[in-house]
């Protein structure tokens, strides 16, 4: 296996852009300063943080004061869901979400069940899309929060959040949107989503891992109970000494993403279609998720007649995921693909290809060749 290595797992994590790395290192090398300190180092740190906050806000056209920095999208999801549910428990204890959400949404919902909340989890259509009317029907008088992701991390489908938001408004429920996979990949604005809470990650769009943000609408401002307490940073919603270099890394990544938004999504979508054309020429290869209502950087296929783990292993020189990064390697079929109605065996024999700024046509063509070869080799072992 000394074939050149091809990374096609950008939905799991992306390499930080060289400019991001440079900005981070420059920050780590700068005169020291805790952003809470009143001396000159502290003030410089605060200025860097606020400049980055403005960049992050700009990508989604939010006011900078609406951006709360967190340690990643997982924490942003938890702050939104645990925070809004607990903070609005007096109004009701019913929550609505979808079976294909990320674990960072589903697991806090499961925790809330232990705290006496009820959750209705909708099943999307076989194309992965949630019917906005179904969200409306799931709402009850005591529904305080609805959580639906913008771009699914496994199959890339893009939900119609604006229509879902309208249902939430009608029922007086807050709307949280996990946009960890969407930011910088598809153009959107918080106004366009009309969401109250939006989770963002840095490391999915060539920023550093370990930093993210939660957009918290200003008017009306949802009540949130913080996850942690102490120090008062981030308007009391997220304490702890601010990791200036991480925040600067996210700001730089978001600035780069905004600059690339005019051309990069189309380029990635073309790569995705190129790969899909190559793979669909093999018999028994199925596309997962809606064919057009989708983000450009994710392609998920299921392959008949092969074992998923063996396929992944045979593709050792192509880095990709069988499901989401968090589930891969566990041998468990993806719960997302199962929610779409794929049977266990086919769900297991699925590959998620995902693309990023460094991805080239040549890599796509090589990857397609290797996938074809691996599938044919494995099928030859079991010509049933």
């Amino acid at each position, binding site marked *: 296996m000394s074939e050149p290595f091809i990374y096609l797992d950008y939905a799991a994590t992306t390499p930080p852009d060289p400019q991001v790395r440079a900005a981070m290192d420059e920050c780590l090398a700068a005169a020291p300063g805790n952003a809470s300190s009143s001396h000159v180092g502290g003030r410089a740190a605060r200025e860097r943080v606020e400049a980055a906050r403005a960049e992050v806000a700009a990508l989604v056209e939010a006011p900078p004061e609406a951006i709360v920095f967190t340690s990643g999208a997982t924490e942003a999801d938890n702050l939104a869901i645990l925070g809004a549910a607990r903070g609005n428990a007096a109004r009701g204890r019913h929550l609505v979400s979808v079976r294909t959400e990320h674990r960072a949404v589903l697991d806090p919902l499961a925790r809330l069940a232990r705290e006496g909340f009820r959750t209705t989890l909708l099943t999307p259509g076989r194309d992965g899309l949630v019917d906005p009317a179904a969200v409306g029907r799931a709402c009850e008088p005591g529904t305080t929060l609805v959580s639906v992701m913008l771009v699914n991390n496994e199959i890339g489908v893009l939900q119609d959040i604006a229509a879902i938001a309208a249902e939430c408004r009608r029922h007086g429920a807050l709307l949280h949107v996990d946009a960890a996979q969407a930011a910088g990949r598809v153009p959107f604005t918080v106004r366009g989503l009309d969401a109250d809470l939006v989770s963002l990650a840095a490391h999915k769009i060539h920023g550093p891992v370990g930093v993210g943000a939660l957009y918290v609408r200003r008017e009306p401002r949802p009540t949130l109970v913080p996850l942690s307490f102490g120090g008062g940073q981030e308007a009391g919603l997220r304490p702890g000494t601010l990791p200036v270099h991480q925040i600067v890394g996210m700001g730089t990544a978001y600035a780069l993403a905004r600059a690339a938004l005019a051309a990069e999504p189309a380029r990635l979508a073309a790569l995705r279609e190129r790969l899909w054309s190559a793979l669909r020429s093999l018999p028994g290869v199925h596309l997962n998720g809606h064919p057009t209502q989708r983000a450009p950087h994710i392609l998920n296929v299921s392959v008949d*007649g092969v*074992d998923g783990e*063996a396929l992944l292993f045979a593709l050792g020189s192509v880095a990709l995921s069988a499901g989401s990064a968090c589930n891969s390697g566990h041998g468990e079929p993806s719960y997302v693909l199962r929610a779409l109605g794929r049977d*266990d065996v086919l769900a297991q024999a699925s590959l998620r290809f995902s693309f990023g700024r460094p991805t080239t046509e040549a890599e796509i063509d090589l990857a397609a060749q290797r996938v074809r070869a691996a599938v044919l080799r494995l099928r030859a072992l*079991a010509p*049933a």
Partner: protein
Amino acid sequence: MSTTEPYAPLVAQLFAELPGAGRPAGPGWACGEAREPLSGTWVRVYLQAAAGRVAACRYEVRGCPHTVAALGLLATRLAGQAVAGLDVDPAALARELGAPAAKLGRIFVIQDALRSAALQLNVGCP
């Protein structure tokens, strides 16, 4: 899964070389088949015997790398063994390949297929 390589080097080697893989041509082969629907594992073992001993072993498989490797090991080892009482120790095989406990069920599938092929050798192919 360990924090380092997910498969032992022996597994990687057998998966790459696939010794004895494929449906045998010609007559005189007994075969046994077994499956495990949850994981979709499917195994067919072919045996050829001469003078009460295994002359050759072949297989077809749809399964995980550990399952594929276990069959490769079998194919290279069964030749020469007495057909009477022919069997495999799934736990020992799993250990040798460094397969995690969760994989043991699939090695049992191999045992089932092998036993049923051996049975035909003893009883005579249909």
